[in-house]
């Protein structure tokens, strides 16, 4: 059974229909890349998966259970589905360690030592054991993003959504973040990522989803899709990048 299933998702911003009936299932351990031109709806789709964007029509199922718009359902959904953002979005008034500890403490009601242990473990995992007491503005972009990943992981989500996690980084900092994402993929974490890193997508992902004008235009194994794009749109998208 799929971890997350999306059926016939529709979403409009005013008169603009951004998602025009999306079906997507995310299986446990799968690493999915959402690619496409800007405005194709890939970020919006990602944000519907954890309820940051309310959908107009369609069904989202997590673990076989339908998610409604009620707050309790949304909170239950978000316990399963973590997210990392393009702009890191660390809380500026907390240290790296406090950023990671906050939600386990207040949401999961873990004790301070318990939360601290998990936070230290996660920050060590992303290579920041020596930066735990730093505030976000004392960290580089790559370091901030790795704290954000640790923060999401500390909630032990079943799925991690990554929204262009390297797009705001200086080129020399991209690799340290991608290395962490790659490590997560290798450990079997279920990942859905919107990315412009095509080489990375090709190497790490199991499934490529190409979006075009609010629809899933083409999907399949990354090697296959990149080597033999079936549609002219994907062909030109891939060609335009090369």
């Amino acid at each position, binding site marked *: 059974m799929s971890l997350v299933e999306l059926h016939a998702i529709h979403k409009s911003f005013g008169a603009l229909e951004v998602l025009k009936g999306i079906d997507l299932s995310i299986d446990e351990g799968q690493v999915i890349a959402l690619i496409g031109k800007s405005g194709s709806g890939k970020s919006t789709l990602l944000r519907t998966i954890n309820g940051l964007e309310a959908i107009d029509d369609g069904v989202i199922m997590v673990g076989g259970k339908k998610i409604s718009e009620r707050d309790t359902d949304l909170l239950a959904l978000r316990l399963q589905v973590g997210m990392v953002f393009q702009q890191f979005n660390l809380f500026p008034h907390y240290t790296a360690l406090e950023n990671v500890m906050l939600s386990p403490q207040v949401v999961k009601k873990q004790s301070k030592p318990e939360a601290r242990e998990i936070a230290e473990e996660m920050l060590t995992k992303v290579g920041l054991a020596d930066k735990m007491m730093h505030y976000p503005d004392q960290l580089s972009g790559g370091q901030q993003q790795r704290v954000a990943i640790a923060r*999401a992981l500390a909630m032990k989500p079943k799925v991690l959504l990554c929204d262009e996690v390297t797009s705001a980084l200086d080129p020399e900092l991209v690799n340290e973040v991608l290395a962490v994402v790659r490590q997560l993929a290798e450990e079997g974490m279920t990942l859905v990522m919107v990315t412009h890193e095509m080489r990375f997508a090709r190497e790490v992902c199991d499934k490529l989803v190409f979006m075009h004008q609010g629809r899933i235009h083409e999907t399949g194994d990354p090697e296959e899709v990149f080597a033999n794009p079936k549609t002219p749109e994907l062909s030109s998208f891939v060609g335009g990048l090369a």
Partner: protein
Amino acid sequence: MAYKFDFGAIVPHWELLVDGMILTTELTVIGAVVGVGLGIMGAWARASRAPVISQIVGVYVELIRNTPFLVQLFFIFFGLPALGVKLSEFQAAVLAMIVNLGAYSTEIIRAGILAIPQGQIEAAQSLAMNRVQIFRYVVLLPALKKIWPALSSQIVIVMLGSSVCSQIAAEELTFGANYIQAINFRAFEVYFVVTGLYLAMSILLRMGLKVLGNFLFERRRHV
């Protein structure tokens, strides 16, 4: 004949001024603490997605910000007894100050809340935090930090505005001054000294609020 200044004429009444300063301080401290608390709740309601509550708070804010403090005070002290709510001078004065500061600080704190980047709130939502948790742990402190200078000024304004409470015979500093000059007719001397006292209290209050701000917003590791 030139006026002969006699500041010594105030000396026998010094206790009135000290008592007045104490009462002014009490009014200000209670008014500021409860008023800012009210402002935090009001700002949260204004920024929340509940339209009815937001509008009710909006009406309260506009009502208070567009009417004179003196009239608000008179309404509470002279008007409310008609509804069976009879308050002492002190109670009426402190309530008027709370209601007044509550409205102004609602708008000030709301500006701070609106200045929190949406991404911070989305990150907190993605961590499964509920609205109360997000407000308490993610929004409130950075929001207060952004508007602390403006809020501090408003608290000083309310402290100075408390002089109006002399009009309902709340025995604060201005009341004391009025009383002394009515006895010794030394208006210049009395109000000159009282001006200095208000100035000193304002400066002290500003310094105190700055220290409080430094304490609240300094980088303290919680673990």
